[in-house]
């Protein structure tokens, strides 16, 4: 019998790059539930995920990974819970340019507390290219103040290698 496939879930606030990252990674045409935004649309962001994204990728060792993406708006929290059922790991993407990304971090570590507490979560900080100093420091500080041991990376969701790095880090932290 084949082992159960790995299920990874991209989550995080609106515009953090969940849909983009899943598209970069998936080897099948992803299932999308994008809808035009009736509020808050910008030049760069006109649609939003209202149910889920779905894709698949095969790792170098032949293991099949099912990829899910959640919506980002807090009023879609029930979708996050449905999508995350049975998830092997959570890939939390945070937009470093958001007004209060630590608040986003607090919200999503709470929403996915089971995964966060047992280390089945990895953080990808997007939109760091304009940041001064070390953009990751505030996330590390927030996490260590609360006793979380989670890997944090600066990633560009448009860059497939960056996304793969997150997947590998998650796979590694699940193994040990």
């Amino acid at each position, binding site marked *: 019998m084949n082992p159960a496939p790995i299920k990874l879930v991209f989550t995080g606030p609106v515009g953090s790059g969940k849909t983009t990252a899943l598209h970069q990674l998936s080897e099948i045409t992803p*299932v*999308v*539930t994008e*809808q*035009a*935004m*009736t*509020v*808050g*649309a910008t030049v760069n962001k006109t649609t*939003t995920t*209202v*149910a*889920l994204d779905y894709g698949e990728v095969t790792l170098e060792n032949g293991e099949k990974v099912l990829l899910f993406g959640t*919506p980002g*708006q807090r*009023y*879609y929290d*029930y*979708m996050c819970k449905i999508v995350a059922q049975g998830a092997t790991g959570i890939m939390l993407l945070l937009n470093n340019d958001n007004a209060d990304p630590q608040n986003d971090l607090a919200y999503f570590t709470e929403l996915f507390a089971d995964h966060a507490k047992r280390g089945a979560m990895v953080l990808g900080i997007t939109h760091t290219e304009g940041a001064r100093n070390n953009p990751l420091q505030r996330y590390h500080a927030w996490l260590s103040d609360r006793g979380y041991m989670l890997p944090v990376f600066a990633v560009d969701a448009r860059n497939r290698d960056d996304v793969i790095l997150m997947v590998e880090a998650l796979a590694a932290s699940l193994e040990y």
Partner: protein
Amino acid sequence: MNLIPHPSFSSTLTNEFNRALLQLKDSVPDLSTACVATRDGFEIARLESDNDQRKLAAMASSMHALGDAIAAEASLGACRNVIIEGNAGKAVMLTVPDAAANKVLIAAASSDTNLAMLLISSRTCCEQLANASQNHFAPDTEFVT
């Protein structure tokens, strides 16, 4: 509780939506809930007797988008409606067929209501909603740029 006004839909338009929902209630006496949601999950009109349906509106938008995704995957064409049948009642979600194509109607009734009846009445309601939004078509009431 009052509805939170949506910046893309004028109160004149939502008042017309409310009238269409009341007519739906007249043709389906057993109707328990009806609301108009944007396809990105905001409640824009609801039956006056209803409480806050914000969560239901968001869920209808998710469900409808999944209906679209499944219809595409199984080559069914565009999704016109999604039907849910429970032990104690049923709900239908329909695309409002206007040019913007950004709204969905969700209507629910107890099991005393016949499904075909609920669907046909909801479809009529959708046409009224579409006519109303077509008549109100203006850049500041339909699209955010």
